[in-house]
């Protein structure tokens, strides 16, 4: 409670400071640190802190706001939509220049986004989309393209086996059945490898994005499908679980069975550097710099594309060794 009150007081004080800065911008040049009139204030509402990925996402936004000279008002919704709506309303009252947020759920945003629109405050969605029919409610959506991630995974596989004419038996560990990343990573991968009949997905099952399920399902695959060449896991965690299963079966992960995963979290990158995973497609939480660029453009009134894909890369084992020391998450 005390924390909340102090946060409110703090928010109130900063709001005061901002308004006074705005009204007296002519005279108080000595007080304002550099930017003066061009200082942009952004209200950012985060989903929560449920995973290492999310924490890295938060850090990226906070740090790049500092570098870009944007005043950031940060609010953590703790996985609750009502908290997020409250945060957005308070941003509107504080008259921030731009609002950015990662929606907890897809639906139910129209009323509060309308309020922002009426107050003429542009909105940017990050990481997750909303399913509103009225696309004028937000300026742009910045986030990963899961289909593209699946395609990248497929392309590496096609490249790796381009000289071989033998059949390649693939097993797939899917994410939570019905979730957007699972559906799209599956579809993108299928699209690329479907062009060549030598690639065959011999077994596919959900591992719920968890290590425990990844291990359990892989154990069963190893017994029911004796000849496995490649494992494609929709995230690092399932891949890490599967590695243990493969080792338990007396095989060498990365050699006897080649492994492709998506995400590039620290544990996954470590396994990649150790040679246990062959290829990781990044699903980057570090969208801060891109977000700040977009925010500046939007505030200036410049046109921005309605969909911006996060800058993401892929990692081979050598690249992982280089990238690992400076990895933030």
């Amino acid at each position: 409670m005390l924390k909340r009150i102090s946060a409110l007081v703090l928010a109130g004080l900063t709001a005061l400071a901002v308004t006074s800065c705005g009204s007296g911008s002519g005279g108080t040049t000595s007080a304002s640190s550099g930017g003066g009139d061009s200082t942009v204030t952004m209200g950012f509402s985060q989903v929560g802190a449920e995973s290492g990925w999310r924490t890295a996402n938060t850090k990226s936004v906070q740090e790049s706001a500092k570098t870009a000279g944007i005043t950031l008002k940060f609010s953590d919704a703790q996985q609750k939509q009502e908290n997020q709506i409250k945060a957005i309303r308070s941003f509107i009252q504080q008259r921030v220049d731009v609002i950015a947020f990662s929606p907890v759920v897809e639906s139910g945003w129209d009323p509060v986004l309308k309020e922002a629109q009426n107050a003429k405050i542009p909105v940017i969605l990050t990481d997750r989309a909303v399913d509103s029919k009225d696309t004028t409610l937000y300026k742009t959506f910045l986030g990963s393209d899961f289909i593209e991630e699946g395609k990248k995974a497929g392309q590496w596989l096609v490249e790796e086996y381009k000289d071989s004419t033998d059949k390649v038996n693939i097993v797939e560990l899917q994410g939570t059945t019905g979730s957007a990343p699972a559906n799209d990573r599956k579809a993108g991968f299928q699209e690329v490898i479907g062009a060549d009949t030598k690639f065959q997905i011999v077994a596919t099952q959900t591992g719920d994005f968890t290590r425990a399920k990844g291990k359990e399902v892989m154990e069963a695959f190893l017994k029911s499908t004796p000849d496995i060449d490649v494992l494609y896991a929709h995230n690092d965690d399932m891949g890490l679980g599967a590695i243990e299963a493969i080792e338990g079966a007396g095989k060498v992960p990365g050699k006897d069975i080649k492994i492709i995963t998506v995400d590039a979290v620290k544990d996954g990158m470590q396994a990649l550097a150790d040679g246990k995973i062959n290829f990781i497609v990044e699903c980057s939480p570090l969208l801060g710099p891109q977000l700040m660029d977009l925010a500046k453009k939007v505030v200036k009134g410049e046109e921005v594309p309605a969909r911006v894909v996060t800058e993401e890369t892929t990692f081979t084992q050598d690249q992982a060794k280089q990238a690992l020391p400076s990895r933030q998450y």
Partner: protein
Amino acid sequence: MRRLLWPVVVLVLLLALNVFFSPGFFSIQVRDGHLYGSLIDILRFGAPLILVSLGMTLVIATGGIDLSVGSVVAISGALACLQISQGASLFTAVALALGLSLVLGAWNGFLVAGIGIQPIIATLILMVAGRGLAQLITDGQIITVNSPAYKVIGGGYWLTVPFGILIVLAVLAVTAFLTRRLALGMLIESVGGNAEASRLAGIRARGIIIMVYAFAALCAGVAGLMISSNVSSADGNNAGLWIELDAILAVVIGGTALSGGRFSLGGTVLGALIIQTLTTTIYSIGVPPETTLLFKALVVTAVCLIQSPSFRAKALRRRGRAAVPGPASEEKVRVSL
């Protein structure tokens, strides 16, 4: 023993089904110095469920139910992994995790027996709050530990046998001894049959109820250690998610009445094995992920129907209308579902 006939038949049928799809299903070999094979997998991955179900059996025998075991699984694994990642010894980590589990179980028992809250509500509190507690411990992250000693609990081997299976055997032996060789089992059944009458007869019903909830949480705590040790990491969000429902199902398939007053440890072990075999079967015969849940539901429904004497009697009567109604109605009294 006749009570266990149908669960055994179902288990054998499920195992037989697997042989059609993967001929090597029954082969067990020694690989890398440990036993290796699908049957071993079923026992190894089924071990946490068997443990949780054993605890659940005694709770259900007192006429209660414990929904919080899944959360206790997560808390115990999270605390143990946190301790180990901070450099605590294996013994300290395990003792702290199991100690906390016992406290949580006693809390459940206190709510049920001391305050008199309905068991399903009392344990629902910890089921919801416990997930939060687990995430508080892990700080919302997945804690990865690198401790070969801790790894043994759920993923290691002793004399080629998976260590988890040995733990289950030990817990099962102790439980069977306490409840079947000593009077404890009878007291539990008596409390489940009628708590008030038992109290008037001189049984400390309250103490017994607190004890069974503490035991259930302890079993869940050990299962939590196994699950987190198996993958060397603690996941507060997902560890033991919905295991309480699987455990209740295992208990029911094993022929323990949900109304309390009677229990079968052997039946529960069989029930848990049936559920794990079903899961493994789904993976090995390649049921598409979209239909996995439906497939599971259909098999479970069939198992429950086969198990029900009144359903069997009805099905038989339909075939031969003139069959004697006497034994059927008599058997109805003993319906376990």
